[in-house]
């Protein structure tokens, strides 16, 4: 394999994942929280593709594709929730949602 070895990929994946963790914990807008979640999923995906290359097995890439589909489903429901929240004139702030039926 030419170029950087698998540890380099895993290091980038770790940086991406922890950036996403910071975003999820730090930001209050549910939109940015969703975007940071995507960052975390992509960090995991990069690790999956890297490991797939390490072992020479394609199962990791298949799993990465499944993760992409789940991420698309999650975005669909998440954005639906955010739109419903804004239609009910609720403040878009994850800290203000402390009850399921508020």
């Amino acid at each position: 394999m030419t170029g950087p070895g698998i540890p380099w990929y895993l290091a980038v994946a770790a940086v991406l994942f922890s950036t996403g963790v910071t975003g999820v914990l730090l930001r209050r807008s549910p939109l940015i929280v969703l975007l940071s979640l995507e960052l975390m999923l992509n960090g995991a995906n990069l690790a999956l593709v890297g490991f797939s290359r390490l072992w020479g097995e394609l199962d990791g890439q298949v799993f990465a594709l499944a993760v992409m589909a789940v991420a698309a489903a999650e975005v669909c429901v998440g954005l639906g929730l955010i739109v419903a929240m804004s239609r009910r004139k609720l403040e878009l702030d994850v800290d203000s949602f402390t009850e399921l039926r508020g």
Partner: protein
Amino acid sequence: MGELLTWVVWMIAATACVVTGVRVVIATSPFSSALSLIGNLASLAVLYLLASGEFVAAAQVLVYAGAVMVMFLFVIAYLGGHADAPFAAHRVAQLSAVVAALAVLAVTLVAVLLDAGGHLSDERDVTRSFGSPAEIGRLFLTDHLLAFEITSIVLLVAAVGGVVLGTRARAEDEADAASDRAEAPA
């Protein structure tokens, strides 16, 4: 020559990936946050290509940077200025967020840099068809058929859920408007 070029491309893609990733978190407007995520996804696709994940890279650009992010941008445009929100309220919350993220980073980086007991440095040789659509399609229709079918059901349920959330919100909207009109003359 090929080796050096691969390193250069990899470094550019990885740097772009990390920089845009940080920008997603620190940008104040959700619009530039989403645009940074698109750049992040594109540079990740380059990394996938360098790790022989051709089909995953193509799917990443088409599905993620194309479809999913367009949906995001639509919703951000729909919400307008509503979507803006500052960082977490309390200093303590901000500090603990950064500490938690650094802890995750430290644990993974230590594991990676110690080379996981020497298991990470010897990649297997792969054929040229590794990561091609044909190979992935074969796996999806043989070994991972159940996962493939379950994924389609998950997507269907999510689509129905999105529609239900949207219509219920609209029904409540119209009920509110009707009650407003009823109250107005009195």
